[in-house]
């Protein structure tokens, strides 16, 4: 059993200059075979491993990651967490996730720095306003906290926003989810990894999966850089590489990958204590505990796996940020980077069985799957353990693109992150 993190362990380790902390998880060599092999050590894969062990007692599990834990989109996102989605199916799934977030630091004994500082979505036009009203009503019917703010209330909630007349992006109102907020991106990967490891899950890094052994329509093993590993079941959680691995397994997905960028500024004193999102102008902003402004941009339009995007995209975002928050005009940006986001035509994820028996897919979360990490892992673990989806993810099947039962969150305002 691993020692728990606590104020006492912190003090004890301070005495030895923090040089004596034990490793947070083991790094074993892969065993020849596992009941479940999870491909992808981002938040979703690691959460899945944790819930498989904890909720379903399946502990003979490996998480296989090509690089390092959380090195994909998990470690590259702007960490906005909310559940105010339009459609019932999404609202229930994301709300389940938000509820898990609320107890996660305690459950994992790992500070995921979940901060429910409130997420505000701005409306800049009459059309935005109507969509906002519709979404707020839908949220409330689904038990998701959501309220409307007048421009005056927007200003009270976020005093640094510029609402003087004549701005390029007038603010006509906003929706507010007070239970929404941000969290620490790496912590969710590391916290789940540590907790899963403690339950017996093997975490194997620097080991790309390069192929599958499939016999009579059933997956038997994964081929990796560290050799063949037999698997009772194989669960994909590779986000930006979903199509690549699906192709290796012989099926296709309705997913396309785009570069999505984010950037951070130099650190400053606390200046903005909420999350402000504006879909219409592709600008998202919050401030990290370190003090840097964390800003999310829009996607580059073309298909891309380069994990970097074009400057015109960030320029457009920064122009909008400067328009809404003139006091940031002289801030310097320190770093920008990109991830590869896996988007579905209806902007909803796929958590589902696949045409290959014993193989499962969790992907297509696109630009907004950080918030869903706990919930996604939870329903995916259920799907793998029972070979059947949980009611919460039953609608997020791969065959919805055949039946036409799409969950169209695209036009549904608050989408994006």
């Amino acid at each position, binding site marked *: 059993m691993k020692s728990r993190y606590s104020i006492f362990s912190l003090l004890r380790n301070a005495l030895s200059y923090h040089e004596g902390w034990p490793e947070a998880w083991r790094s074993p060599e892969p065993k020849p075979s596992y009941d479940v092999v999870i491909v992808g050590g981002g938040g979703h894969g690691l959460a899945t491993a944790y819930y498989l062990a904890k909720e379903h007692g399946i502990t003979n599990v490996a998480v296989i990651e090509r690089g390092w834990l959380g090195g994909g989109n998990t470690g590259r996102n702007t960490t906005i967490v909310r559940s105010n989605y339009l459609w019932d199916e999404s609202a229930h799934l994301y709300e389940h996730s938000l509820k898990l977030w609320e107890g996660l630091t305690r459950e994992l004994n790992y500070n995921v720095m979940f901060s429910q500082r409130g997420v505000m979505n701005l409306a800049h036009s009459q059309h935005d306003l109507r969509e906002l009203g519709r979404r707020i009503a839908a949220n409330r019917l689904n038990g998701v906290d959501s309220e409307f703010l007048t421009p005056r209330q927007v200003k009270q909630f976020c005093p640094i926003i510029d609402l003087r007349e004549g701005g390029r992006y007038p603010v006509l109102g906003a929706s507010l989810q007070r239970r929404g907020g941000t969290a620490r991106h790496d912590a969710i990967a590391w916290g789940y990894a540590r907790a899963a490891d403690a339950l017996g899950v093997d975490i194997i890094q620097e080991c790309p999966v*390069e192929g599958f052994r499939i016999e009579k329509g059933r997956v038997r093993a994964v081929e990796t850089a560290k050799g063949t590993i037999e698997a009772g079941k194989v669960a994909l959680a590779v986000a930006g590489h979903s199509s690549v691995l699906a192709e290796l397994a012989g099926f296709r997905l*309705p997913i396309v990958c785009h570069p999505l960028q984010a950037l951070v500024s130099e650190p400053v004193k606390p200046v903005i204590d909420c999350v402000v999102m504006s879909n219409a102008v592709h600008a998202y902003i919050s401030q990290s505990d370190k003090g840097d402004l964390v800003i999310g941009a829009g996607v580059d339009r*073309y*298909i891309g796996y*380069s994990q970097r995007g074009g400057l*015109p995209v960030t320029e457009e975002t920064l122009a909008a940020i400067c328009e809404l928050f003139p006091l940031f005009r002289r801030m310097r940006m320190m770093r920008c980077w990109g991830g590869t986001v896996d988007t579905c035509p209806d902007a909803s994820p796929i958590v589902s069985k696949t045409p290959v028996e014993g193989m499962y897919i969790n992907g297509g979360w696109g630009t907004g799957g950080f918030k869903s990490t706990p919930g996604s892992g939870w329903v995916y673990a259920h799907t793998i353990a029972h070979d059947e989806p949980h009611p919460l993810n039953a609608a997020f099947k791969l065959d919805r693109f055949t039946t036409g039962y799409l969950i169209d969150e695209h036009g549904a305002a608050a989408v994006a992150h």
Partner: protein
Amino acid sequence: MLLIPCPYCGPREETEFSYGGEAHIERPKQPEALGDEAWADYLFMTGNTKGVFLERWVHSHGCRRWFNAARDTLTNEVLAVYEMGGKPPKLEKRSYV
């Protein structure tokens, strides 16, 4: 930012172009004969290659003509451009896992 060689105007900045997605997708010849699965395939199961991808661009703020390009989606190298309706050039296959 990409530098895209328009076959008609030469190399121009990406911001002059709009993206048209995967190239060479054939419209179903007999739509009324198509089953749900085939429709899903046509509408949604588009290419998402990590490697050399054949795609369409239009030079919106230039000659306004459409053309095809072969681009490596990992390195962003544009390996070839060719006209609409043209056959894709023979290129060395690149694919990455």
